[in-house]
């Protein structure tokens, strides 16, 4: 809302750069626009794969078949000598040398309802505001990578639309364009009753009306308004990136035909098209009962498309600039409960990172032999956010949001980047 530096002349170009998921509000509310602009050139992108409910580290990245807490699955060798994943992850095992795994995540919140927002906001020090989730934050900090496309797209099961609740104090315009089951929201489709020529004709009328109005009022908000229509038309023209019919059948098979596979394949297309931040949500990982049958069904659903995504990005060279994160709000308990389930365990769990300044083949984090506790340094989500911002070229300490005159750190003040996974 207020900022000491709002050079009026820059208003339009910056608004255009922000790509008009946004509007006039909030622009100028960043303290380091110069840094942000610099980074736009580098075209860093993010794919966050969110396994909601909490994937079991024992049945995925950190199998400990010798431990008292082991489940029924074997561990298998990976492409890195001496490193093993669960046998439920054969594809990821083959690309272990391309990714980093942190096995010493030690976060704080064992509840879904507060843990999910805490993790996706990166748990900055409470300053009495609702911090944005990572996707909205990156949309704000970096703007769109391709100015024709919205900076934050969220692929999720169920319904889509424009969902702005994740934007927090940044305001609605930094929310997500949500693709329900990978499909574009209905308003991206021109109704059948209107042909392309017909649409063009009515837009020509609209533009002329705006030009006439502007002639006497000439203000930046009028340009911003016109830009929002240009953005809408550009997005509609790129509807193909949401079209399942355009997918290569071979890719569909490689990624898997289950929703997570289809959604990660869709994410790849969006990244290729230049969407800055893509989040893919998968639900039902909360295996309090029957953890092993559920893991046997679920884990392959992330294993296959994750490995395919990393391989594809690597082959196309995009992995240099695209950060891929696979995580949950916490891991699962070492102790197997009476229903053959594992409960919530934030104390020691694993996540995977790849690309964009992340080391290839770093397996980070020592734990007790049974995997229950971190030995040495444990990492909280604040450290993860410092890492993510740093590899994206956003200085986590020097960059601040500015909100109603208040300077707000983008990440937890006392955390640091996790050097062990960074190039």
């Amino acid at each position, binding site marked *: *809302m*207020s900022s000491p530096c709002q050079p*009026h002349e820059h208003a339009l170009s910056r608004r255009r750069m922000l790509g*008009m*998921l*946004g*509007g*006039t*509000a909030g622009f100028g509310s960043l303290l380091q626009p110069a840094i942000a602009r610099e980074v736009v050139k580098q075209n860093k992108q993010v794919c966050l794969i969110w396994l909601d409910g909490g994937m079991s580290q024992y049945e995925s990245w950190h199998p400990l078949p010798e431990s008292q807490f082991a489940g029924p699955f074997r561990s298998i060798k990976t492409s890195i000598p001496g490193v093993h994943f669960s046998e439920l992850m054969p594809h990821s095992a083959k690309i272990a040398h391309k990714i980093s795994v942190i096995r010493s995540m030690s976060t704080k919140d064992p509840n879904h309802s507060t843990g999910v927002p805490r993790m996706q906001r990166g748990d900055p020090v409470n*300053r*009495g505001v609702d911090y944005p989730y990572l996707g909205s934050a990156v949309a704000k900090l970096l703007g769109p990578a391709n100015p024709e496309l919205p900076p934050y797209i969220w692929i999720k099961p*169920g*319904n889509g*639309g*424009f969902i*702005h609740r994740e934007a*927090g*104090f940044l*305001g*609605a*315009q930094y*929310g997500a*364009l*949500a693709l*329900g089951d990978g*499909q574009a*929201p*209905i*308003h*991206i*489709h*021109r*109704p059948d*009753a*209107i042909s392309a020529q*017909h649409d063009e004709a*009515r837009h020509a*009328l*609209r533009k*002329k*009306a*705006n030009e*006439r*109005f*502007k002639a006497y*009022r*000439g*203000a930046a*908000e009028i340009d*911003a*308004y*016109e*830009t*929002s*229509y240009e953005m*809408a038309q550009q*997005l509609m023209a790129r509807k193909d990136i949401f079209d399942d019919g355009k997918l290569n059948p071979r890719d569909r098979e490689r990624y898997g035909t289950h929703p997570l596979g289809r959604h990660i394949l869709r994410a790849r297309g969006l990244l290729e098209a230049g969407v800055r931040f893509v989040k893919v949500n998968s639900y039902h990982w909360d295996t309090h009962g029957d953890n092993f049958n559920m893991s046997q069904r679920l884990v392959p659903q992330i294993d296959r498309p994750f490995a395919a995504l990393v391989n594809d990005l690597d082959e196309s060279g995009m992995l240099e600039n695209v950060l891929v994160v696979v995580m949950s709000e916490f891991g699962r308990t070492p102790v197997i409960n009476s229903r053959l389930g594992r409960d919530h365990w934030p104390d020691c769990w694993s996540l995977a990172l790849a690309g964009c300044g992340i080391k290839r083949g770093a397996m980070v984090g020592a734990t007790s032999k049974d995997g229950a506790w971190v030995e040495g340094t444990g990492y909280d989500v604040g450290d993860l956010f410092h890492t993510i911002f740093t590899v994206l070229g956003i200085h986590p300490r020097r960059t601040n949001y500015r909100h*109603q*005159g208040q*300077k707000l750190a983008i990440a937890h003040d006392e955390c640091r980047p996790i050097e062990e996974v960074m190039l």
Partner: protein
Amino acid sequence: MGRQALLFCALAGFALAVLPCHADSLPAAIDKFITAKASGTLAERSDDAEFLRRVTLDFTGTIPTPEEVRAFLSDNSAQKRAALIDKHLAGDSFARHWADRLSVMLLERRVLGKVPEEDWRIYLQRTLRGQPRWNLMVREMIAATGKGEVRPAMKFLGNGDQHRLTEDIARLFLGRDLKCARCHDHPSVDEWKQAHYWGLFAYLQQTKPATHQGEKKVYFVEGLATKKIDFQSVFTEEKKETGPKLPGRQEVAIPKFEKGQEYEHPASDGLPAVPRFRPRELLAADLSSSEHGAFLRNSVNRFWFLLMGRGLLHPLDQTHSENPPSHPQLLDLLQREFADHNCDLKWLLRQIALSESYQRSSRLPEGVKEREPKRYRTAHPKGLTPEQLLHAILRATGNDRVLIQVQPPGAGKFDRRGYFSGTNKNLPHAYDDIRAIFVETFGQLAGVAEDDFAPGLNKALFLMNDRLILHWLEPRDANLIARLRKLDSPDAVAEELYLSVLSRVPTSEERSEVSEYLAQFTDRRDTALGDLAWALLSSIEFRLNH
């Protein structure tokens, strides 16, 4: 009387009519202060159509009908602007629209507490239909217990979250965003102290909801306050304490009672005992007192903002010495006069609307390239609120009937999320569902003030491709397109179209554009008419209250 004298009287009468106020009236004083600081060319007075649209949107939340535009443009009465303002202030639409405005300002679209939205609206509308006194409205909301016919006033108290209330009261009624001062003195605003936050909090600390055992209804009660509240900055070791205290005012002493004498009423009806000392009730009275300058100043600034598009002090919640008002004397005067007129809301709005400053055109004067909002040289265009936009679209397209539509009996709840993602192929029928779609598309996040015009991709896509909008642009009953298709001459079409959608007469360029477009698409005249209307609905001119 000689000819010259007659001429003089006629001229004087004319001057009085154009500026219907004598020199020391409030509207004239507003203009004096604004003119004195304009330091540049002022825009001309708005023409009648611009004024009519502006005042109708501001006071009734929608645009005028084409008949109203025609009637106003052909009305030769010198007093017609003042008469229009008075008519609007007395009407039901004023109560409906300002209930929306006040509700959005006070609750910021949060879903709060146990009072149904509907009851809250009815309550606000009932107050606004009469002679609403802002200080009494605020007092009623803060002191609310949930008893009697003013029960819905307790909506503002929400779930009784004392920190939210402290922040909201500071922001909305004192113009101070004290959020940061909860944990320490404000980092960038020296005069905002942690003690201000906790002084306000101390008034609310004992407030809590309680459920009546028999009725199973929630009421607001106060517990027993016996001592000051402790607080400590996260940056220092020093412990401090405060009793109930408004910034810059006397701290309220917490009375000591003999044991057994603390309560006015014992617990009854399933509700706890009522203490003699009830700080929230005191807050309600002290805050909204006509002696309380900070409250009055913030109030007039917010209402000025709602009509003028920019606060004299802006941003509205940054009241401190580093952010001085653009026109301090004017703010002083408004504050004083508002108090002298018993915080009469309609009186204040009327005075502002009567000023030439409000009635100025939003067109830039010759040779001027950009607006300078804080100088008010032109009218400042305001974005339509989601509700204004919906009502204006319904009015423009002749689909006002939608306003009274309800869900047919037996029909299930409308699946709004499915509507946005395309899985729900039905069109919403009930006004409430349609309003919710507009609020979701054009409104802000819950808890964020809607005080800025923010265009956006999703908003543009909605106006371009939403099925409802297209549905309203199909000829039906006596709606706009049905009326237009009956008109043979393109010129008559242009006139009816512009009067209906943009509330003004088309220019000759616009008339020929309409004529050419219709000539180009003779094979699909109905949809061509729809296109012409759509283009105006989607234009920036429609989207702004300019």
